[in-house]
């Protein structure tokens, strides 16, 4: 016997190893050294979440009860995988182009981004998966019990509830830690995937170990095992054709529709080519997993005392043969099977619940909807974390309610039938353009209801939600509605009965609903995009006209993607359009790309609804549909090209107009500046002249003389400063400035700038928000010049911020080899029309001269930053005037010399 403490210690060590592996993988992936994390082998191994504890322990029990039928559970997935070119490749491609986050999102996105369908699929998935999670908890507690109890086949578990709670809590912690690191579904959960892959290896090694031990250790080799099979109770093969075909079909459907399988197959897929490897390697894995199932079952039936639970032969056989080490390995294998399933299922379900239920609910409850969305990112992540907890709590609740009864063992296949209800809508959606939302909804609801009525509720037994009376006589005594003999057809295996009726009526409702209803424009666009996903010449766009206000979109995107990410996305789009800054033209193409980017985070339905708030009236029109639906494709394409060209021309014209406006503005400003500078020069000159004339008076009292001399002195300083600025600017512009490059702490520089700028309008009470730890960063640059830029920005904020309680937020961030320093105040910001000219010389937004400068400050800043190899930009959408100073951490020495 293995000491129980040793087992617990081994188990904890294994869990720590999993955490460590996941942590290291996340670290490596983040630092860009994780190439091997994206290998096809890791992908193949991650698919092994298909093999849960139910298949690890249960397959042997299944074989011991009904012989070879257990193999059907592996045959279906094998058939789908070897034919990957057919369905899986299409799913993966759709998943990538549409940035699908879950199976509920796939269905919702295909049928016109309908959130209602997403909710139905989510509910189905939760109802079908929670008992399945309970089954995993049960298997772990049972296997603990085997070691804990005095006799190997002990069922009386001393503290099974406590074990289950610990397991569920540990799994929740792991999943929350590594499963909700990022929001975007298309950024992979490397830590989780690599841990799953490791667990896949442990599972296989454990089952192989036990199998080899049984075949060559207990029995006398392959020949002997075959002889034992001939002599065993399962020597004859009671093949039931209906179950044989039905279970194969069911397991094939499960591979496509189980939320956890969709998660690893489609969402976590990094490269379509991995499918080519997984297409044969995963069937090989399944083959290996089932190779020793029958030998273990046969030897177990022969060796173990009558009445022992065949589901636990994998554990009890090595134990009773005195091989404790192997039993621990087998235990870890079962533990791996259970935990990997629960982790992935929890992530998949949490994504669905947060994207299809919590976020839409929250957005609709808020006044102002998406326009006032704020920090959606934090909300979704919190929702996801809570959902993981809720999903595991549901699993635990189900487990403790059912009391670890044997009824749980059947839940695996019951869940398969439930989730297979998604199959008609899914396959119809990717292969048939005529499938509509009404059809899909009707099919899903019909299938879901029938599954509940004929299989799920009766599975609780006669004491459950459906009474024995209803089971025998039907509701209200209507015999033709008996849950396990619908329409009076009796004598079918209950599972097959439920599967046939639910799927048949589901498909019928789906087809009839689709044929009779008329799809909306968006639905037809999405239908074409899904069915013709490989046909890239047909561009499908969800938005026909642009014109949404870019700044609002940026604010919203920042709330979802995070500031940095959204700004990078907008900036890249602007650069692509040949514009500087952060605000691209909102072309239909850009809006479409933005929507997909957001869909990767919050699901297509929510993303669409949020964008629609900004691009109202710009959604798909009937005319746009013509281009997709019409058969005269060539003509359409030609006209589409023409249209694209004219749009391009219009955009260029708009850009030219913008430049022209800017030039005109500048010229006006220049004239204004000339008069301004003459004025600026003349005012001090006039007073200098006047006062020096007075000074020439011989009998002036001494105090007066001193006062006038001081005025002359001040005016002279003002003049010098103005001339200095002009000189400085011209030197900087010609790149002839002498730079003194040295190392300094960025924190000290900011501190210096704030102190120096405090003399500007010292009467104002100014609040600074800073994150001091991030500021401590060494920079190698001309520190005096950099401080000059900072002083300018801070004193500008002090001068112009028009808030009652002015505040300035300073954020420092390292972005690769560059440092970004943001200065954001809480005033009303700079109007859009002025944003493009503030860095020009002589520009001034207020015509008052209270600023005391000549409008050269920001122009000098820009030139300084250019000399330092950096940039300074206006950052829109931050709720006030915001400037971003970006500079290299280490300025190139060649130019500094």
């Amino acid at each position, binding site marked *: 016997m293995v000491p129980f403490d040793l087992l617990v210690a081994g188990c904890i060590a294994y869990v720590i190893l999993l955490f460590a592996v996941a942590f290291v993988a996340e670290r490596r992936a983040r630092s860009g050294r994780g190439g091997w994390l994206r290998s096809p082998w890791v992908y193949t191994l991650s698919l092994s979440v298909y093999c849960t504890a139910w298949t690890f322990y249960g397959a042997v029990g299944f074989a011991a009860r009904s012989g070879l039928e257990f193999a059907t559970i592996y045959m279906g997935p094998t058939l789908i995988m070897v034919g990957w070119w057919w369905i899986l490749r299409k799913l993966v491609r759709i998943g990538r182009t549409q940035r699908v986050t879950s199976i509920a999102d796939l269905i919702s996105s295909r049928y016109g981004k309908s959130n209602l369908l997403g909710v139905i699929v989510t509910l189905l998935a939760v109802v079908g998966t929670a008992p399945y999670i309970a089954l995993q908890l049960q298997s772990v507690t049972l296997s603990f019990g085997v070691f804990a109890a005095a006799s190997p086949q002990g069922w009386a578990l001393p503290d099974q509830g406590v074990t289950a709670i610990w397991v569920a809590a540990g799994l929740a912690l792991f999943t929350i830690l590594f499963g909700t690191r990022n929001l975007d579904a298309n950024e992979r959960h490397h830590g989780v995937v690599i841990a799953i892959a490791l667990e896949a290896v442990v599972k296989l090694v454990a089952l192989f170990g036990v199998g080899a031990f049984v075949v060559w250790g207990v029995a006398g080799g392959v020949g002997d095992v075959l002889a034992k099979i001939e002599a065993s109770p399962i020597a004859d*093969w009671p093949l039931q054709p209906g179950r044989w075909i039905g279970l194969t079909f069911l397991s094939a459907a499960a591979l496509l529709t189980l939320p956890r399988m969709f998660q690893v197959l489609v969402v976590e897929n990094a490269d379509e080519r991995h499918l080519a490897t997984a297409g044969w390697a995963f069937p090989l894995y399944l083959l290996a997993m089932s190779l020793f199932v029958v030998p273990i079952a046969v030897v177990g039936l022969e060796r173990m005392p009558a009445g022992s639970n065949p589901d636990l032969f994998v554990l009890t056989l090595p134990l009773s043969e005195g091989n404790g080490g192997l039993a621990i390995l087998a235990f870890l294998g079962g533990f791996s099977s259970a935990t990997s399933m629960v982790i992935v299922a929890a992530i998949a379900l949490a994504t669905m619940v947060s994207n299809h239920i919590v976020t839409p609910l929250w957005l609709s409850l808020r006044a102002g909807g998406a326009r006032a969305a704020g920090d959606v990112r934090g909300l979704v992540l919190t929702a996801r974390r809570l959902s993981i907890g809720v999903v595991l709590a549901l699993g635990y609740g189900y487990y403790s309610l059912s009391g670890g009864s044997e009824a749980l063992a059947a839940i695996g296949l019951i869940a398969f039938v439930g989730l297979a209800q998604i199959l008609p809508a899914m396959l119809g959606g990717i292969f048939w353009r005529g499938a509509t939302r009404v059809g899909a909804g009707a099919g899903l609801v019909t299938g879901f209801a029938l599954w509940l009525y004929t299989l799920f509720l009766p599975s609780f037994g006669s004491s459950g939600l459906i009474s024995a009376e209803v089971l025998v006589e039907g509701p209200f005594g209507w015999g033709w509605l008996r849950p396990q003999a619908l329409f009076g057809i009796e004598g079918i295996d209950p599972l097959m009965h439920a599967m046939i009726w639910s799927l048949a009526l589901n498909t019928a409702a789906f087809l009839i609903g689709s044929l009779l209803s008329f799809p909306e424009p968006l639905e037809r666009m999405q239908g074409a995009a899904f069915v013709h996903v490989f046909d890239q010449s047909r561009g499908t766009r969800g938005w026909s006209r642009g014109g949404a206000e870019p700044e609002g979109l940026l604010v919203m995107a920042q709330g979802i993607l995070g500031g940095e990410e959204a700004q990078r996305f907008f900036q890249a789009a602007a650069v692509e359009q040949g514009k500087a800054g952060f605000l691209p033209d909102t072309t239909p193409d850009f809006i479409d790309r933005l929507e997909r980017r957001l869909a990767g985070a919050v699901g297509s339905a929510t993303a669409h609804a949020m964008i629609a708030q900004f691009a109202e009236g710009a959604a798909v029109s009937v005319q746009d549909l013509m281009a997709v639906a019409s058969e005269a494709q060539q003509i359409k394409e030609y006209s589409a090209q023409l249209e694209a060209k004219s749009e391009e021309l219009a955009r260029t014209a708009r850009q030219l107009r913008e430049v022209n406006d800017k030039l005109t503005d500048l010229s006006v400003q220049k004239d204004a500046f000339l008069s301004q500078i003459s004025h600026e020069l003349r005012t001090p000159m006039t007073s200098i002249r006047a006062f020096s004339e007075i000074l020439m008076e011989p009998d002036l009292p001494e105090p007066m003389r001193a006062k006038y001399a001081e005025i002359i002195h001040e005016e002279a300083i003002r003049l010098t400063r103005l001339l200095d600025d002009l000189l400085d600017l011209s030197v900087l512009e010609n790149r002839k400035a002498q730079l003194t490059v040295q190392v300094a702490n960025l924190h000290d520089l900011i501190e210096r700038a704030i102190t120096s700028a405090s003399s500007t309008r010292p009467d104002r009470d100014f609040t600074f928000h800073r994150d001091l730890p991030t500021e401590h960063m060494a920079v190698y640059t001309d520190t005096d010049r950099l401080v000059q830029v900072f002083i300018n920005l801070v004193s500008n904020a002090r001068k112009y911020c028009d808030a009652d309680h002015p505040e300035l937020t300073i954020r420092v961030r390292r972005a690769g080899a560059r440092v970004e320093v943001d200065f954001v105040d809480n005033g009303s910001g700079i109007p859009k029309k002025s944003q493009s000219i503030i860095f020009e010389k002589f520009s001034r937004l207020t015509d008052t001269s209270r600023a005391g400068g000549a409008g050269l400050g920001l122009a000098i800043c820009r030139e300084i930053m250019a000399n330092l190899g950096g940039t300074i930009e206006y950052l829109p959408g931050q709720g006030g005037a915001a400037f971003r100073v970006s500079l290299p951490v280490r300025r190139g020495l060649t130019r500094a010399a």
Partner: protein
Amino acid sequence: MTLPDAGTGRRGDRRPPVFLARRSYRRRRMMDACRMLPILGAALWMIPILWHPADTAADDTAPGIVYLFAVWIVLVALAAALSRGLTRALEDGEDEGG
């Protein structure tokens, strides 16, 4: 549909004529083969139904195991043989939908 290649189809040259569509034609058939694999597998795995193992007196489990796993190995081998060519097709972007 093949067209004889005028340039390289010299008499006595054992090499097959080089023409552009040949490789992509092969690849298309490989895609077809990959799509057919599940049908082949399903057909082979359903054959035991015809044996009526439940009705016959003989013990069928042992030969059944051997048969099931033999089909399995054949499927894996065929899929592995196709995977290389199909990976290349994916890399070259030759993925028509139909």
